[in-house]
Structures are given as structure tokens and as C-alpha cells.
């Protein structure tokens, strides 16, 4: 038992505690935009949102290499209105393309917070879902949605461009139904997210107020 612990596998108690602590909390509190409630105007706007996705590709891991392939001639994501954005201010979608070290997480959070509502997160690969092959690494986070609200996960290691496009299409679907865009949720559950973030980020120096 002690040997196992020494390589970092949590004890059942710890897992239990962690399940309580890190349970994803994507509440629907911020969802002003449900399919049932959305009006005509919102419907049209969602149509525009869905067809115009400006992407800030945070090339964290090996998935970064898939993005060029997705964007260029062969797979041509632009036909879905997907297009790169230079800065988070202009972007709608953030792509987390692979494992996230804790050091990078800090930057990712910063970028996410600088994006404007409604904003979406797509996480690539198993590393972003559950840590993947880095599940027991000392400096890599395991589940992204403990730190940021994720809209779409794309499985695979790594997902091929087809899967990526599929992921985007899924996101478009969610947008159309008003189920995507967890900025409001992030704001309302900020305390919880902050607690988790602060747990892994040692040198925490963010400003106190969250200013979108």
C-alpha cells in the first residue's frame, strides 16, 4: 500500500474526498439562453454565434499540431465560420489542445477570463479529460473542468481533425440550443473554481476581482 502511495495513486479516502471537492459544478444558473426560454432575437443571435467561432488556440500539448491541419485546405474549418483570433479579446472559443501543466493552467485561466461572454471551451484529448498518460504527474492537472467550465470534450490521443471538426459541430449544436457558453456559470461558481485553481497553482497572484 505504501509503495503504491509513493508513486502518487490516491487512497480511496482521498478519492472520495476529491470527488466531493472536485465534482464538476456546471449548474444551469447562468443559462439564460435555454432552448425553451430563448426568444426570437436570441434565436437569431445564436445562429450568428454558432456560425462565427473565433478561436484562440491555446496550444498546450501535442494537439497543437492538429489545429493547422484543421484550419487549412484539407479540412478547411473556415467553411463553418471557424477562424483564428489573435487575442482572447476577440475570441469566442478557447481550445485546450492537450495536457495542461499547472504552470500553463495559470495562463489558461487568465486567457479564459479575458475572453468576452459568451465564451466556449473545447478540451482536446484524454489528457484534458482525465489526465491521460499524465494522470499521476506531479505537475499536470487531471480534469480540466475542475478549473474551467468545459463545453465540449474531444476524445482521442490525439483527436484527428475530423474529430476536431466533429467537436466544433457539437459545440454549434450546443450553442444553437443555448446550452453552451459557461461564462455565467463560471462567474456564479467562481468561489469553487478559485478554490480548485488555488489548490494547484502555488504562486497565486491574480487580482481579487474577476473582471471578465
Amino acid at each position, binding site marked *: 500500500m505504501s509503495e503504491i502511495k509513493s508513486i502518487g495513486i490516491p487512497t480511496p479516502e482521498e478519492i472520495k474526498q476529491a470527488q466531493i471537492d472536485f465534482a464538476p459544478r456546471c449548474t444551469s444558473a447562468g443559462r439564460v439562453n435555454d432552448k425553451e426560454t430563448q426568444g426570437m432575437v436570441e434565436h437569431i*443571435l445564436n445562429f450568428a454565434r454558432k456560425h*462565427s467561432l473565433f478561436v484562440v488556440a491555446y496550444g498546450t500539448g501535442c494537439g497543437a499540431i492538429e489545429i493547422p491541419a484543421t484550419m487549412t485546405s484539407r479540412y478547411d474549418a473556415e467553411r463553418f465560420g471557424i477562424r483564428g483570433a489573435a487575442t482572447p479579446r476577440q475570441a469566442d472559443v478557447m481550445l485546450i489542445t492537450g495536457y495542461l501543466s499547472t504552470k500553463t493552467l495559470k495562463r489558461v485561466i487568465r486567457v479564459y477570463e479575458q475572453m*468576452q461572454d*459568451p465564451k466556449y471551451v473545447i478540451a482536446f484529448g484524454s489528457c484534458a479529460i482525465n489526465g491521460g498518460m499524465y494522470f499521476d504527474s506531479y505537475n499536470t492537472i487531471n480534469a480540466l473542468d475542475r478549473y474551467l467550465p468545459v463545453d465540449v470534450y474531444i476524445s482521442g490521443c490525439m483527436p484527428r481533425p475530423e474529430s476536431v471538426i466533429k467537436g466544433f459541430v457539437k459545440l454549434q449544436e450546443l450553442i444553437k440550443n443555448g446550452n453552451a457558453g459557461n461564462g455565467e456559470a463560471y462567474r456564479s461558481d467562481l468561489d469553487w473554481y478559485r478554490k480548485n485553481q488555488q489548490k494547484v497553482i502555488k504562486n497565486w497572484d491574480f487580482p481579487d476581482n474577476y473582471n471578465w
Partner: protein
Amino acid sequence: MEGIFIKILGAFLTAILAFVVGMLYGGLRRKVIARAQNRVGPPIHQNFLDLMKLQAKRTNIAHGFMGHMAPVWIIIAAMTVLMFIPILHGNLWFENLTMKGDLIFLLYMMVFGSLGMALGAGQSGNPNSAMGVSRGLAQLVGFEIPFFLALIALMIQFNTTSIAVLMDHQEATGRWIIVDNPFAFIAALLASLGMFRYAPFDIVGAPAELASGPRSEFGGKYLGTMMTGGAVFAFIKLVMYVDLFLGGAGNNNLEGLAGTALGLVELLVKTFLLYMIPVFIGLVTPRFRTEQAIQFFWKWPTFFGILAIVWALYKNGTIG
């Protein structure tokens, strides 16, 4: 009273036309580029969707008053210049304030937007923005020189500084200025490459290098408004070139709506063809550094500009 009503209505009509055409041309450009790269590309109306999405952003940030004002400046510049550009020759609806301002005014007014945008970008405090502005202003000095030379050539050849009078002249003689003074057209055309800021002169807002430069801190409604302004400006530049060199549009004998419609079609064809020049050049060229861009503008375009003046003086009878 009725005249004022028509004027106001015409102004709105002009604005809508410019907006729609500008946006569509932007979409077309994306489509053309995609096709050239063997892609399907976005739909032509993609820019409208983008704009709508940007305006539909729920939250917006600005870095201060000048940041808030920056898109306003662009809209002011775009709309003001638009009102002074003749869209269709002799058409009541699109006449606006055509006779009330001349080329020098237009030249300066067109800078107004860039300057306002530069101020807004400056306030964001992002060093990338400041760098972009620095490059943009430097490049401005580059391409304004040949453009101004071309304009002077036109002014002295036809003894007017008014764009409307130049159009009248072309209609009266039935000869386009591109024939009368081809060098001026070449100089102005080369200058227009810089004016559109497509490759190879797109270092100002290079996304990978400067994080889109001056616009890097603008999002949501601000970016959307800027896009609108940019689209209108694209239209303005094209119409201006068509007016100056390609005889303008609307020189038909048809009365009423038909004439207007024909004129518009003519305008669209001419502007589209003109627009494709910078687009295609942009497709196949890499990026100039700022000083290379400036030096480029100060070499061949300026040479053609001076040639244009000499030509104008020759045609005018002042020399030769």
C-alpha cells in the same frame, strides 16, 4: 423641405449601400482566397455573421474613454468621407454633399479614422497595439506620397480639386482618366495596396506577430463597429478610385429606377474588378517589413507619381 428629406433618405441609402457592399466584398475576398487555396471557404455572408456575433457579445471591455471612442472615430471618418464621394454620377439619391468638399479634404478626412483608432489602441496600454500604430503611421507616410502625387497630377491636368468635377469631365469627354493619365492610375493603384493593408503590406495588424496590432484589445461591439467602419472604408476607396480613374458609374441615359439600377450594377462591376487587384496581389505575396514597405512606396509608385505630374503638365501645355 422635400429636398432635405430626400437628402437624409439618400444619405441613409448611401450608408446602407456602402455597408452592405463593403461587407459582401469582405466575404467575397475570403471566399476568393479560400478558393485560391483550394478550400471551400466560408459563405459570402460570413462577415455579416461575424459582425452580428460580435455585436451579440454579452460583455464588453474598454480600457478607457479613448478606447471607447476609437470605433466612433472610425465611423465618423467613414460616414463623413462617404457623404462627400459621388456614388453615382448625377443621381439625386446618392448626391449627398458631393460638391461641398474637395480632394484635399477627403485626403485628410480619411486619416481621421486611423488616427482615432490609433488613439484608442494607444490607451489600451498593450505594447502590441502601440507597435502596430507605430508601423501603421509609418506606412501611412509611405503610401500617401504616391497617392498624393497622383491626385496632384489629376488636379493640375484638369484644373480642379473636386472629385465631382473630375467625374463630370470624364462623362463630358467620354474618356476615362486612366486613359488620359495612366501613370497617375498606376501610382494610385500601387498606393492603394498599402491603403487596403492586405499582404504584402499587412504588417500593421499581423495576427501572429503583433496579435493583430492596434485591434488587439478590442472585442465585442467595439470590434464589430470597427469592422463596419472598415467595410465602409473599403467601399469608399473603391468608389473613389472608380470615380477618379474609371469614369465613375451611372453615366447612362436611362431615367428613374432603371438608370439607378444600371448605374449600381456598373458600379459594382467596376469596384469588384478593382478590388480583386489588391486581393490577388495579397494572395501571392508574403509580408514586407515596415521599412521595406515604405521604401517600396517611395521608389516605384513615387516615380510613377512624378511621371504622372510631368505627363499632366505636358498634357496641360505647361511644358513641352
